[in-house]
């Protein structure tokens, strides 16, 4: 039961983008070890601006 709740919470965080920075850090650690990752603030700014570039909502 607890693991199901945890799974649900993971889905909610993932869908809302709450865990976007953690995922970025993970991606960064896997692919670009040489340079330092962005701060949470800087990453979030870029993430939000990118998310809204283009058609994201429909009728």
């Amino acid at each position, binding site marked *: 039961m607890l693991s199901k709740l945890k799974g649900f919470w993971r*889905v909610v965080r993932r869908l809302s983008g709450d865990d976007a920075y953690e995922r970025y850090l993970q*991606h960064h650690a896997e692919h670009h070890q040489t340079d330092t990752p962005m701060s949470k603030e800087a990453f979030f700014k870029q993430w939000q601006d*990118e998310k809204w570039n283009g*058609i994201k909502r*429909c*009728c």
Partner: protein
Amino acid sequence: MNKLLKNSIWILIAALGAAAVGGIALNRGESINTLWFVTAALCVYAIAYRFYAAWIAATVLAVDETRATPAERLDNGRDFVPTNKWIVFGHHFAAIAGPGPLVGPTLAAQFGYLPGTLWILFGAVLGGCVQDMVTLFLSTRRDAKSLGQMARDELGALGGTAALIGTFAIMIILIAVLGLVVVNAMKHSPWATATVSATIPIAMIVGLYMRSFRPGQVLEASALGVILLLLAVVGGGWIDHNPTLRTWFDHEGLTLAWWVMAYGFAAAILPVWLLLAPRDYLSTYVKLGTITLLAVAIIMLQPTVKMPALTQFIDGTGPIFGGKLFPFVFITIACGAISGFHALIASGTTPKLLSNERDIRMIGYGGMLLESFVAIMAMMAATVLDPGVFFAINSPAGVVGKEAIDAVAKISSWGFPVTVDQMQLLANQMGEATLFARTGGAPSLAVGMASIFGSAFGESMLALWYHFAIMFEAIFILTTLDAGTRVGRFMLQDMLGNIWPKMAETSWMPSVVLTSALVVAGWGYFLYIGVIDPNGGVNILWPLFGIANQMLAAIALCVATGILIKSDKLKYAWVTGLPLTWLVTITSAAAWEKIASDNIRIGFFSAANDLADKLAAGALPPEKAAVTPQLIFNLHLDGWLTLFFVVLLWLIVFDMLRVCSRYLAGKPVLPLAESPHTQSRLVEDWVRD
């Protein structure tokens, strides 16, 4: 044995579905329970998903789960990210489900419950879902390119340009009609106006919270926002009961329309994080929550449908919009059955997240099935109302008369009895001054939802439920409005950039202000005309929106059919070819009637001539005569716009046929733009485990 059991279950589902659809279709004169609709819908969806969608995915598209998707090949950790299929489904559904499937079925309920319900069910499984799934597949095979780009690559410059113009036009008309729906819901309703206005500062608080106070803490900020929204619904009631405060929020439609335009302009030039992004979070939560709540309430309560299966208005004399059942039910219900706009999400946005091609069926086809179910629920919410009440709320004053006593007499004379007292009691219960002539679909949907929620979760809070439902519709209508204005601005900047490159710089303020103002002026014009139109404006704008949306769907299906034929799949081309043929038929038929009909409630030009004659003869009351020249100009404009849409549609159909016949004759055509096969490592990893 196992196989036998499985087969028997599917046979059982098929039989149950057939019984439910038959029950709905053949029922006459007796009241019918909404459970029949839920059963029919779920069985039809299950069968279509299990068999038709699976066959399309396996045989027609030949999805290949070993092939790396763009999300995997181009993974950059930001926009291209291979993502769990349920997460992609959530994003995709949140993106495609807007206010369209709620408004369309409500308006189309004037024909009775049957035509709209059948079109929503079968239009979706044979048309809309197929369009979404095939477009998602094609874009996935083409590095997540947009529909316009695919049209240009596969058919030629004409297709690409048509898709671009179609998208821009539909955006303008969509925003105008949605703006009109919100204005009609807030007109002289201090409660609704106060609650809807409060959503703007709430969004800004949430935006500041997740940008500066606690950067990136999306869920915390959203939870705060949802609580504030609920308080805003209650607070609106408090304002409504305060004699001084309520006058601040009690406005004419025209004043509200100017405010909506000012809001759209501000939202297009303000940074996204301050207004657009937080507002979108809130609207997505409220939308998903409310839709779930509605489904639970309908299943718990199983209300009875009071609308007849068919009304006399199938002959074209309906009060909400003029026009016969064919083709207008198919134009009125676009989203929920087939919506061209989805092709813009299914190409470009969703494929960037898709981790495996085998999930295309669930996300493309399944996502649209869920949207279709939302439309079915909207149809139920409209038809559980007393038909007399439904028509009293949705009929414009220009058709049934301005005075309540005239309106009830006229509506009762159609065989849908309703009284002034009954309407007044209902308005009191909902916390409104009046519910007559609240056109646009939102108020009647809110009354329907409030009565369903009220019976399921407590009758005493009807007014709260009503304004919650209004807030729910307004918040995501405004999200579509500001997101659409912004997209329109980007498109316009892009187009003008071809003439003067500096205009394309999205951070150059003069260009930003100019293009935003142009886009707002575009939809603001139609909104303004809709508000001053005594017939409510929705009857003009909604069919125009439907025609534009179906035209976009036809463009997407043209691209799909062209690619199927170029991929040597001529024998399967009917999968997209049949819905395309149907769309071209209904769009052309509707456009023809809108242009050529001499019935003034249908034809744009005949209505313009009629008004011009009346104006010349001095037969109009002075306040109407003052706005008549504008109405005449607008009717001409709408007529030409319809003609433009249908010409564009036929051009692209002929272009597609030209490309296909050249290919079949062995002549050179543009090559397939599919990206080469790369083995998926995600699958290899999985296999190795």
